[in-house]
């Protein structure tokens, strides 16, 4: 019940944003949601299962290109039904990415630590190079003219394309959050956590560690693919350059900044990492030279030194609220 209320509340916020902010803020909001999904899904692998993956951009690319390509074959339905089309594209993109994740994960997840990181990085790069040389999806020129949400006219009342795109993205963000949140509190999730804490002990306790890792990896890839699909239909343009190594790094930054194993931390870090470079733009008027990326990287270093465990550590935001309220109870 509660999640539904949260969804409904956030959904209504979407209407408010639609009326009161311009398209730029709306675009940033969608980018934040895409980054949230990337951060949460990577957190499942990096934070909860303790495996270091550097290839998240590759899975996002698989999802984005699958979904974009599918929409050129099967154009979205008109009016309100379009949301089902986008839902369908997102599922397909996610499944394709999950398949890629399975293919990559199965052989490579027996590697440990930085070796795994390099192999995932390698796979990410291989996916990018293949896309760069596939003329069917535009190669270096990129894939353009991907259809995105359109306005839905309800006879006088128009549901704007932003609201449709936002609803779709919000649905997935909430679903991703709930899936991972519930999962890590289930027996499967306990298995993931045990792999992170001590692989040998986990094995001894009868956890099939390889299977647990592959499961986490596949689910993570699925949501990365969905994020890619949302990206494809909101940016309406895809280019292999958008899925380079740096995007994987960005995802890792968000996970670590938010706190390994903290979903609410990932959400907050996604907001921070998306907004910071944009917010620093006006600075140029003051300094004359473009210092925004210099400041961005400096604040990254400073944040890491000041909060070595990330913003939230492995706590959730609810932990802080709970702690506070219980502290008040004790006082009373």
């Amino acid at each position, binding site marked *: 019940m509660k999640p539904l209320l949260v969804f409904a509340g956030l959904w209504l916020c979407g209407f408010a944003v639609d009326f009161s902010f*311009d398209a*730029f803020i709306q*675009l940033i909001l969608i980018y934040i949601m895409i980054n949230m999904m990337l951060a949460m899904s990577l957190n499942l692998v990096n934070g909860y299962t303790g495996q270091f993956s550097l290839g998240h951009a590759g899975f996002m690319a698989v999802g984005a290109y699958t979904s974009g390509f599918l929409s050129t074959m099967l154009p979205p339905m008109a009016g309100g039904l379009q949301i089902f089309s986008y839902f369908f594209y997102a599922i397909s993109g996610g499944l394709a990415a999950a398949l890629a994740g399975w293919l990559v994960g199965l052989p490579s997840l027996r590697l440990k630590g930085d070796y795994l990181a390099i192999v995932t990085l390698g796979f990410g790069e291989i996916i990018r190079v293949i896309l760069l040389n596939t003329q069917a999806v535009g*190669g*270096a020129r990129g894939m353009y003219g991907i259809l995105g949400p359109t306005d839905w006219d309800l006879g006088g009342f128009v549901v704007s394309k932003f609201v449709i795109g936002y609803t779709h993205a919000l649905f997935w963000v909430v679903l991703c959050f709930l899936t991972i949140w519930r999962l890590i509190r289930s027996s499967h999730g306990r298995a993931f956590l045990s792999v992170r804490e001590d692989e040998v002990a986990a094995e001894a306790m009868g956890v099939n560690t390889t299977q647990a890792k592959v499961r986490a990896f596949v689910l993570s890839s699925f949501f990365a693919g969905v994020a890619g699909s949302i990206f494809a239909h909101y940016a309406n*343009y895809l280019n292999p350059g958008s899925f380079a190594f740096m995007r994987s790094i960005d995802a890792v930054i968000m996970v670590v900044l938010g706190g390994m194993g903290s979903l609410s931390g990932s959400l907050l870090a996604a907001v921070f990492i998306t907004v910071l470079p944009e*917010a620093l*733009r006006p600075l140029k008027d003051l300094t004359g030279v473009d210092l925004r*990326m210099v400041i961005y990287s400096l604040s990254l270093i400073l944040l890491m030194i000041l909060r070595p465990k990330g913003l939230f550590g492995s706590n959730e935001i609810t932990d802080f609220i709970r702690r506070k309220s219980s502290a008040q109870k004790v006082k009373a």
Partner: protein
Amino acid sequence: MRRSLLVALVVLPFLASCTKKNAGNEIVIGHYGSMTGSEATFGQSTDEGIRLAIDEINATGGIKGKKIKLITMDDQGKAEEAASVVTRLIEQEKVVALLGEVASSRSLAAAPIAQAKKVPMLTPSSTNPKVTEVGDFIFRACFIDPFQGTVMAKFASENLKAKKVAILRDVKSDYSVGLADFFAAKFKELGGEIVADVSYQGSDVDFKAQLTQIKSKNPDALFIPGYYTEVGLIARQARELGIKSTLMGGDGWDSPKLSEIGKEAVNGAYFSNHYSTESKEPAAIDFMNKFKAKYNKQPDGLSSVAYDATKMLIKAIEASPEIKASAIRDQLAAVKEFQGATGKITIDDKRNAVKSAVVVQVDGSNNKYVTTINP
């Protein structure tokens, strides 16, 4: 202390974004380009050209008493950033026209937004034909890949009498891939043979593997449709390996850096360009002098086309009855025989610039005029 510093770090950017904007008696033009990132040098060259033209018009009092304000925003060479930056320029800075991008891939990401918001966008140097096909608000001030590819293919077969040509393309750059494809198609049509078609990736430094492969095919000429950043090194390594073939390229070569990096290896190479440093055209000489006076260096190709594009846009704004995006669009579409530094430009019904190309030969820091090819 630690905590307050942390809070400040998190909150500051959000406050910074709320700085107020000054909406004065100005005409606001937006430029989006790769000012940082791996292609920063292209974005910065373009910005220099644009600023030169804007300063010039502002020094003479602006347009109808209004000064022009240029807002440059950095897209870091990323397509998705280009899209968000253009949205920001249109929505928050309320620009009346847009200039950008160098790379067709980023122009293609941004063009649908400009088209949807009905703000004219003039790209100085995106040569891919698809860019202006996005819609009637998208223009370009340079020639397109098919034309340039044809120019060099004709030059190779007619002037150089080349029979066998090898191509070395940059797969990461849509410009390079497009140009290579059109060149290959035309050259084969003219009866030539492409003996090797190999590729590299922009920002590579070692090309010997590709060049060794090309060497064994012994081509008459080697066509390298890339940017000067790599071509200088490619030329050096080709000569080191003992490849004697004539080198050819496109307008991406035009930069004083080419001969600085390539030294004598690039001497004698041919490339298609907008103008030569020997040009007797007053507009070209004037531009080169002004550029040297302002930046204390020679202009490169991107600066010069950006300068022309800006001049063209200024002319369109001057001719508009009112300063409105749609009026500027109509004036841009009507540009005829505009005399820029890089030649006479006419906008055709597909919103592409029709202009002639020259083939130049590298001779130290000079580009010697060889021939002019009309569209």
